[in-house]
């Protein structure tokens, strides 16, 4: 007897991660951090740390994919996806941090009247210092967030190695998606408070 496509699809879709069907994971991050500006990412001072972490993620993922049996396509796919996702997340994070630092620099320059060369600033006022302080604070916080993000990424890559069934993958994926969302929220919060600190003394 013929089984309808609708029924067969329902069976097939059980493989789909539940947590991902309502809201696509990473879409928040994708919207927030989407413009890739590689040349800027290369400039950022936190790069050595991040680069080390990124290569660690990549090597962890690579070693795991080597361990997987050829038939274990779900886990293999998961590692590939994780690798891509982490590379992108790290890069986006660096870029957005750099953009925020640029923004801070611009504020300071605007207030000193275009960063005079050699000449003395007309009035070294308190608000300028406040802007610099806020920028420094934001930068410190951003680096902390970056570290935490990298740690989660590493943990995710490690855990994926032990994921042998689609069910494991689903669980890990939704857990990772949740953590990722929390970071984005935290980062947004930090940005907001930075913007507030930098602008409230106009």
């Amino acid at each position, binding site marked *: 007897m013929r089984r*309808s*496509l*609708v029924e*067969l699809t329902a069976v097939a*879709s059980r493989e789909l*991660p539940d947590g991902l*069907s309502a809201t696509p994971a990473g879409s928040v991050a*994708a919207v*927030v951090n989407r413009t890739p500006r590689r040349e800027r990412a290369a400039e950022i001072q936190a790069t050595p740390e991040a680069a080390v972490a990124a290569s660690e993620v990549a090597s962890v993922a690579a070693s795991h994919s080597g361990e997987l049996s050829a038939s274990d396509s779900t886990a293999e*796919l998961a590692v590939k996806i994780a690798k891509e996702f982490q590379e992108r997340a790290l890069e986006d994070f660096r870029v957005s941090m750099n953009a925020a630092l640029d923004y801070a620099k611009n504020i300071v320059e605007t207030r000193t009247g275009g960063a005079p060369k050699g000449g003395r600033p007309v009035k070294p006022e308190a608000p300028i210092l406040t802007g610099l302080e806020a920028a420094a604070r934001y930068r410190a916080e951003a680096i902390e967030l970056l570290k935490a993000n990298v740690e989660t990424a590493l943990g995710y890559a490690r855990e994926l190695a032990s994921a042998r069934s689609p069910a494991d993958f689903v669980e890990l994926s939704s857990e990772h998606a949740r953590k990722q969302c929390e970071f984005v929220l935290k980062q947004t919060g930090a940005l907001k408070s930075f913007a507030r600190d930098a602008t409230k003394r106009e």
Partner: protein
Amino acid sequence: MHVLALVTQKGGSGKSTLAIGLAVAAMADGECTALIEADVQGTISKWKDRRTGAYPHVERVADTAEMEQAIARLEAEGIWLAIIDTAATNNALAMRAIARSDFCLIPARPTPADIEAAIPTLIAIRRLGRRFAFVLNQAPPRGGRVSEAGTSLNSLGLLALPYIGQRNDHQDALGAGLAVTEFARAGKASEEIQALWRWISTQLIGESSLRAQSVLKAAS
């Protein structure tokens, strides 16, 4: 530049044919469009060899580095839309195409094999947080099976409209180095591809205006 990726690990579902059809339909709409072929099968390159016109531009890429270069090059040339055709597998190149795209299209014929094969692709797309839609391709002219397939795909995600019917014009156009909108301008197949392009362009433009809004919000 918008990037549209045609992905699914099912062979023969019509990725290359749709990529060509949509690229030429977008060109006819006045958009600067290019094709990126990430499939060693080379369907698009062979089609381009048969084609007399210079456009659309076709870039062949064999690995992820080449894909990045091709995307950067096309962007620098002022291309508005790049359409990536991928191989019928979930390889690293297909993953990169998904990761680099603004929108993914998953063509599926009304068969269980096509719908099942779309699931791993769908997982990848969701993990990478990409927007996507199914296209019901090579649909028979009428009957319950088409609506059944439509319902099935709709239960998995957004379904692009209209369905693309099973018509010889698509294959004949391919053989002639033409797109279906050039081969049989007034035909049904041509109409469907044009309508599908309009649907997709709305998705792409809608997305970029949303993005602009979020940027404005962040700036204010």
